């Protein structure tokens, strides 16, 4: 009996060990070729800054220099250095505008991006190091993340003014206020679910004297489309929003509601409600388009 238990435990141990082995190996590789890997400064240069930021949920460790050498010499210097270190050159391209050059080297998971901007008396050099999974070819192939440095989702109402005759959804804030094409568009977030938000507007607009023109459940509409056309989806493409944890476009669109109302004073209101898509537990998004009948 004890022998049997021992044998089972041994098998489990072996299986777990085999499963963990690639991770351990990768971790070891990261240790040896991680962000601590030293990239030498360009020749005849002066360190400007060491900016660090997070993009695409990846830590970018930066160093910026100004060098008296010309761009070609610096390119040659780094090409030689990374070649000797066993790196592969994975990119050499001109950035938009045609002045700035970007070269990229990669060894295993470590990627080094070098940005070179020529100037009259030398070159400005920016170096960014980051770790990418082996299967990821480029940083920009990754999804944007709520952890990124660029994200600053509003914590309060963005500039603009609410409609006087249409209530704003509860427990949320105004994302935008924009006008165009004879209509004004206000976008809000709300903690209510899309269904609750729809019910909120059905009740509130009814009390406000608005007449319902249409009340479209996109899930139902999508199901009807699939039934009639024999299609499997709305054909919105396979693209998933490039946000970490986000749903795809088809999912977002087909879980929404569209309410249309007609007001007493020749007004039209279209309320589009959709599930949020920033992050894993995002707020519902409501857009209200208001226009006057021409």
């Amino acid at each position, binding site marked *: 009996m004890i022998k049997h238990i021992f044998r089972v435990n041994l098998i489990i141990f072996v299986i777990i060990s085999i499963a963990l082995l690639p991770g351990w190996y990768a971790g070891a590789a990261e240790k040896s070729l991680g962000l601590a890997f030293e990239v030498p400064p360009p020749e005849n240069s002066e360190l400007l*800054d060491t900016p660090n930021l997070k993009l695409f949920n990846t830590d970018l460790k930066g160093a910026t220099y100004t060098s008296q050498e010309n761009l070609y010499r610096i390119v040659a210097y780094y090409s030689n250095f990374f070649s000797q270190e066993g790196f592969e050159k994975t990119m050499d391209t001109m950035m938009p505008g045609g002045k700035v050059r970007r070269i990229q080297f990669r060894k295993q998971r470590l990627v080094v991006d070098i940005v070179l901007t020529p100037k009259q008396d030398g070159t400005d050099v920016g170096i960014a190091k980051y770790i990418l999974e082996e299967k990821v070819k480029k940083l920009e192939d990754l999804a944007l993340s709520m952890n990124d440095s660029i*994200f600053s989702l509003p914590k309060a109402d963005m500039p603009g003014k609410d409609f006087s005759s249409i209530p704003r959804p509860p427990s949320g804030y105004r994302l*935008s206020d924009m006008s165009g094409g004879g209509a004004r568009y206000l976008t809000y977030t709300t903690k209510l679910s899309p269904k609750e938000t729809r019910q909120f507007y059905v009740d509130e607009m009814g009390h406000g004297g608005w007449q319902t023109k249409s009340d479209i459940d996109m899930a139902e509409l999508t199901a009807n489309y699939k039934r009639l056309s024999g299609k499997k989806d*709305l054909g919105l493409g396979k693209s998933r929003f490039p946000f970490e944890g986000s749903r795809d476009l088809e999912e977002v669109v087909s879980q929404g509601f569209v309410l249309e109302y007609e007001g007493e004073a020749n007004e039209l209101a279209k309320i589009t409600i959709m599930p949020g898509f920033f992050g894993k537990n995002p707020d519902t998004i409501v*857009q209200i*388009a208001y226009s006057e009948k021409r």
Partner: protein
Amino acid sequence: MYTKFSLNKTRYESGQVFPFLIAIICIVIIMAMITVNLGQIALFRTDVSNAADAGALAGASVISGQLLAYGITSDMMCGQNLIKVAAIVLAFVLMQFFTALPVAIAILTTMLSSNVTALMKAYTDSQMAWTNARKTALQYAFSNAPVDEPRITYEEFLDCLVGGCRNGSRAAPTTDNYNAYLTTDSSDAGLRAAARLYARNGFAKFMDDSKNGWWIDEVFGSVETGPSAPVPTPLVISGYGWTQNPMTGEFINSFEDSGMTPAVCANNYCWRTYENFVEIQVKSRLMYAFELVGLPGQDILAWAVFAYVFITKYPVWLALFAWTGPLAPLIAGLLAAAEATLAKILIDAIKFGIDFSNPDEMIEGSPVEVIVARYKASSNVGLWNFRYAPSPLAPVRAKAQGHAFRTAFGDETISPTFFSMDTLWAIVLFFLANPLIGIAYFIANWDDIFDTSRHLFDVRLQAVQ
């Protein structure tokens, strides 16, 4: 004497010729009778064939009109959605993407709900159009069918009007009847209804009833719609039969005198039991199968938007990340590309119109087929009681297929023509070169951009197998 003999002989020879002449005249008369009969048959066949052609063409015309309507719907959808494309681009240009994106997706959702609603309507319209096509085909075929049921005489009309004349119970013509008709108030609705009832023969009344006459809603209008593929092709069989009662001289017909409800009559082909009948079969598609479609050059449009958003937003991100010094171009490039990708994903997802799921099957393979059959048990046309058709089950028959083709110009379509490559170039020039150049190009190519003639489908008869 010789002379007299000769004259007598001559007279005798003259007498010999006479029987030949009689025989020749008889043969000529018989030939004339045969010719008349054959002519009647030929006429009969021609009439039946014309009726089938008229029905098929009329049905196809309805479809052609509907195809034009679909094309216009697609164009309108395309025009409206292009404005929304501009709104999406504007949102990305004016806002940071995490505020632009909800706005853009809301626009896309609204657009999609309108599109899918338009598609649903197209399905309903297509079902109605095909029903109308069948109805129109049936109506035109009946109207052109050789129905030689005699019209009621004026005298009979007046007698029937006052005395009532159904089922051979016509009252004898009386002066009272005339007087009653002439002196009755013409605004009398009852009289008007009676006049309408008795002024026409059975076939006219049959043709006047589009719910229980030539078309029976209960039988022909209740075809269930299911998923689009495979689309069923319902067969509508309608008919009218009539017989003259040899005793009374009255005509009885399947519409009024079959003793069956219209639905039962239609399901049992009750008209086939009459001395004369005309039967029309119409076969067509039940509805079209559609799908929402993009545009031929949509990927170019999406890339133009990508380029425009990238070019516009790159300097914005560059300024925002100026603090990273020489790294700013890299970060700005990555973020502007991400933002432009988002805009491109949305533009790629936009549907600009409707089209058939399978155009070849939907247009080239979807005729309105009409079969007209005419049976006439006997008719004393010439020398003998002539039978036009061997049996009620094998009447004189003609088949025609009318078709709304797209082969006249070869590029007819119901998908948007509003958006052509010219429109695309106008947009690309507007965004990426100079708005004025874009507008000028748009105006210069106005005729090509609004080429709605591509929605005009040719209608013609198709050779029947």
